């Protein structure tokens, strides 16, 4: 029987080596491509009729759109409209990654810190660059809260810088740790079913049923948290004070 961590193994499907770098098309890449494909198909399929009164499928697409649209305008404000496509893409790739990971025999690419770390770095570096281009040197006032005595500013500045640098870490580790812990736990309880035999082995199965439901909840919550933190970071970079 495979161990509970065997599900996270990266397996090359199409081996490819370029200038000493391993650029193979792996099972991780496959499910990332499927996530992008399923997002595109979902949005195009649900919006194919463009009816004034939405049907059931069109409602799905409109709910997704309005959910992120409201999140962006509530958090960033009117200036944030232009970042809607970015936030929507981030939300959908994380959500699809989490949900496709719930399909049996699939691969959860959001359970790898290299994937979530790359996503978090895109958000972090993007927001920082937007802030610097928009405000120039003035961007540093983000690290000086209002109403401070002048002699305490250097100390608070250092603390704020550390707090700012911890953003991509907490953003990536939260998603990765939740997905990896959840999927490991599913496998462990499934393993109990086998090792406890036919009669007692039923009991961990019920736990597993509850855990699958919980994991689907976590999949949505984590995508929501990732998207809303993207909005918060963008807002900080755009507005400063």
């Amino acid at each position, binding site marked *: 029987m495979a161990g509970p961590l065997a599900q996270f193994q990266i397996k090359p499907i199409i081996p490819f080596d370029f200038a000493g770098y391993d650029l193979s098309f792996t099972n991780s890449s496959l499910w990332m491509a499927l996530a992008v494909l399923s997002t595109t198909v979902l949005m195009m399929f649900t919006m194919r009729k463009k009816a004034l009164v939405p049907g059931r499928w069109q409602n799905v697409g409109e709910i997704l759109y309005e959910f992120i649209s409201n999140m962006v305008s509530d958090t960033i404000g009117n200036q944030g409209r232009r970042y809607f496509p970015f936030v929507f893409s981030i939300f959908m790739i994380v959500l699809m990654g989490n949900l496709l990971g719930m399909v049996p025999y699939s691969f959860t690419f959001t359970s790898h810190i290299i994937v979530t770390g790359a996503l978090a770095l895109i958000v972090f570096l993007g927001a920082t660059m937007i802030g610097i281009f928009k405000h120039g040197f003035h961007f540093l006032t*983000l690290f000086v809260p209002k*109403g*401070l005595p002048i002699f305490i500013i250097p100390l608070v500045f*250092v603390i704020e810088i550390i*707090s700012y640098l911890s953003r991509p870490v*907490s953003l990536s*580790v939260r998603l990765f740790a939740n997905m990896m812990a959840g999927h490991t736990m599913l496998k462990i309880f499934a393993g109990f079913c086998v090792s406890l035999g036919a009669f007692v082995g039923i009991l961990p199965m019920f736990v597993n049923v509850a855990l699958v439901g919980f994991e689907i909840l976590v999949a*949505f919550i984590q995508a929501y948290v990732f998207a*809303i933190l993207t909005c918060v970071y963008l807002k900080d970079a755009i507005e400063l*004070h």
Partner: protein
Amino acid sequence: MTNNHDLKARIAAAKARQNDGDDTDTGTDGRAQIDGKAFGSAMRVGIELVSAIAIGTFVGYWIDQWLNTPPFAMIVFFFLGFAAGFLNLYKAQTKNYHKTGLGELTDTPKNGQKGSKEID
């Protein structure tokens, strides 16, 4: 047998206690409902503290390597990281932190909008 009775009495007491509590937390069927926003907020704060400590310690270690002064910078930046972690927690629970800053701690609340629990 007595054990069973005891458990039933405790369940009944717990149910009564839950119904006595504020009704906003319980749905129409009396069971606790999961509030998505609150749950998301709870998921946020746990890692915020730890990540800031990790970053602070790492920055201190890096400065030690650079200036060849181990272990002083690492110790100092460990505590600064701790401070940054609590700052993260404060930010996560405060709306418009960058508009109001730390001044909100001493200012009088305006229209009772201070310290909203919603995540922003």
